[in-house]
């Protein structure tokens, strides 16, 4: 067993609340919270308890690194004396507790875009640097989960600072990075049986993920399919709302707007969605993606072709949110398999 025993700690499930209280003194805690009959990741309010008996959250935790609304600059003053200042980014350290491996994978995917050799997005990076992620192994993947198709899995640990596994009435917490290890230092060491039980769960975990898609060669094939009739077919039932892209943990398009009221204003970054009719609408009124099929093509192409060409990974982590929440049940797994089934004719291949 390569996991050193010293890094394996445990805590009784019912003691977690106390631990969180302790951590809250120094950190902002972000964790899943139960609302009505679904679970959302959010900053824990006072006396709010995390809900860890969940399959996955409705929203994707990407919003804590790439917020839906983020101030770039705030300014104040009358027109000729305009003062600009960068918004003070909260420097308080944060912990995200209970993030599922698919969502952590998505952050690794986003890192390639926001922090790379050519360009570093400081807003993203600061939030990234300030945050410790405690991943949470999936004992019960959903039928719509297909994380194993993207070099990830229900116990994928890359990107986590610590990793939680639920066994019976205990959480086994494994310290991975220095920061993660330090945080759980004071917890009791897990014994051999616990570590063994944990190993057992992890060993067969990948087989518990019920669905998978074969994405090999999809990026290359898509390159030849820009003008294929399949786009009209798969987008016919699309309503053009932003559910798939706004819940998606890897979608990252944004729009910049200025908001000015009297003498105060701000420049603000908002999420945008390729599904919307005003996405990439030119100032001239020209819309290069006028029809639903063009917008659907953009979504699939961006995830499975452009992103792969630019950054070497497919921008999908198999969380299944777009499948379960789409109002008309558009299923990305089906789209991939129908792309796979397309027989390219000479004309399509140029």
């Amino acid at each position, binding site marked *: 067993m390569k996991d050193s025993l010293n890094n394996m700690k445990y805590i009784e499930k019912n003691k977690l609340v106390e631990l969180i209280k302790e951590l809250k003194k120094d950190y902002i805690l972000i964790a899943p919270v139960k609302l009505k009959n679904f679970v959302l990741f959010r900053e824990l309010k006072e006396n709010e308890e995390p809900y860890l008996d969940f399959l996955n959250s409705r929203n994707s935790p990407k919003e804590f690194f790439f917020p839906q609304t983020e101030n770039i600059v705030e300014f104040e003053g009358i027109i000729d004396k305009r003062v600009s200042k960068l918004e003070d980014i909260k420097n308080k350290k944060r912990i995200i507790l209970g993030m599922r491996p698919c969502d952590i994978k998505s952050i690794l995917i986003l890192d390639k875009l926001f922090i790379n050799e050519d360009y570093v997005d400081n807003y993203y990076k600061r939030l990234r640097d300030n945050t410790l992620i405690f991943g949470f192994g999936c004992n019960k993947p959903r039928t719509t989960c297909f994380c194993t198709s993207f070099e990830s899995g229900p116990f994928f640990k890359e990107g986590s600072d610590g990793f939680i596994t639920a066994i019976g009435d205990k959480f086994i917490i494994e310290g991975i990075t220095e920061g993660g290890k330090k945080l759980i230092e004071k917890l009791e060491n897990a014994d051999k049986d616990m570590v063994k039980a944990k190993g057992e769960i992890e060993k067969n975990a990948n087989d518990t993920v019920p669905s998978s898609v074969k994405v090999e060669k999809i990026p290359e094939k898509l390159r030849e399919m820009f003008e294929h009739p399949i786009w009209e077919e798969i987008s016919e039932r699309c309503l053009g709302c932003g559910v798939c892209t706004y819940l998606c943990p890897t979608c990252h398009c944004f729009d910049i707007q200025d*908001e000015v*009221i*009297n*003498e*105060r204003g*701000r420049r603000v970054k908002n999420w945008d969605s390729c599904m919307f009719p005003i996405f990439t609408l030119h100032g001239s009124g020209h819309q290069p993606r006028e029809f639903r099929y063009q917008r659907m093509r953009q979504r699939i192409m961006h995830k499975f072709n452009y992103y792969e060409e630019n950054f070497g990974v497919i921008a999908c982590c198999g969380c299944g949110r777009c499948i379960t929440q789409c109002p008309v049940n558009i299923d990305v797994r089906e789209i991939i398999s129908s792309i796979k089934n397309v027989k390219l004719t000479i004309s399509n291949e140029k």
Partner: protein
Amino acid sequence: MLKSLLEYLGLEKGRLQLAWLSSAEAERFVKIAKETIELVRKLGPAKKLVKKKFATERHRKTQKNNEK
């Protein structure tokens, strides 16, 4: 219907005022304007459906005063 909807959602009764008026009804206009001013004075500054995050300094001050 709009008035009914807003009041149903919890906006103060009377915050939204509607009147049918023609440009020929100067006296009626004055009367309604006066009545409206009186009604709004009674209600005080609006707290609902007001941009809070991004209020101007002046507005913030009035908001603070109201809270006191």
